[in-house]
């Protein structure tokens, strides 16, 4: 067993946990001090970052595993059908499932046509 390797694993695990958990404690204290309606006491920029981080994750995840024209067309088709399905169903699971199926079919179809 490599002791140094385990030391790195444990330090990274502790650090990552603290990065995730400490802001919860700090924000609770901040909100408790204000003792007002919680939704209105967070700084505006912090509330703004939530949807923006999700939008950024979407942008990063758009880069397909397969970075060629098949990947680009399949990604566009998958996104279009996911959005269409979400617009009509307003659910979470069904649009994602349909999007993955269409993405897979387009990838498979274009790969075999080519």
């Amino acid at each position: 067993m490599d002791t140094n390797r385990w030391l790195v694993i444990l330090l990274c695990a502790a650090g990552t946990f603290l990065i995730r958990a400490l802001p919860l404690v700090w924000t609770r204290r901040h909100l408790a001090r204000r003792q007002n309606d919680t939704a209105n006491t967070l700084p505006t920029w912090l509330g703004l970052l939530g949807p923006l981080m999700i939008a950024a994750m979407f942008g990063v995840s758009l880069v397909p595993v397969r970075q060629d024209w098949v990947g680009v067309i399949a990604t566009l088709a998958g996104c279009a059908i996911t959005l269409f399905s979400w617009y009509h169903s307003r659910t979470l699971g069904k649009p994602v499932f349909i999007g993955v199926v269409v993405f897979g079919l387009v990838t498979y179809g274009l790969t075999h046509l080519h």
Partner: protein
Amino acid sequence: MNNPTTNDSSLSPWLQGMRDAMPLLGGYIPVAISFGLIATQANFSVWEATAISALIYAGASQFLMVAMLASGASTWLVVVMTLLINARHVVYAPNLTPLVPPGRRWIALMHGLTDQVFALAHNRLPQLPMATRQGWYSGAALLAWVSWVLGTTLGAVAGASLTQQWPLLGEVMPFALPALFLVLIAPRFTSPLWFIVLGLTIGTALMLAVLQFSNAAIPVAAAAGALAYYVLMALNQKTGAEHGH
């Protein structure tokens, strides 16, 4: 536009959380299998690979950590680089704090607060009764964590044969993540201002990811979007004031 996602009252909050987190599996399992495979190729044991996924539980930084350790980088450099990549998580908990009830258990539950779980929770928690939120989050986070850990073990044990046998699966399943993020972000396009701000954020993140700056892409794109938001708000107020005179 709102997002009235269905709340199935016949399901317990835990099961409802697990059901909502199912789309995450499509993204988590193939990447976890890849991580397990890469870790064992870098001379990590199955146990070590599994422990990294169970304890650190942060995709991109795990790949970097394994690569740096395999190349003989110093302990502190590996720790600092890994934590720098994970630093973006610092803004997730403050965004969830107003949405969750008090309780010490939430501190431990923050271990499961990945990018994807945050995105899901930020969208779903406001739609749920306060009393069911801890159960919902626990179910969703547990399913995501278990899939990541088991996927890593599977990849470490049999990753090479799996990727050879089903090469297309590794290309198709990860599309579940952009599809999920799209469904989570779509209800936010509520005004021209948000169209511009979100479009700019998505475009910036995509461009940075294509240019191989994936780790910096999320915080940099979000910062660019926030800047655009404040600039547009200031312009809007200025125009409003001029029309008022």
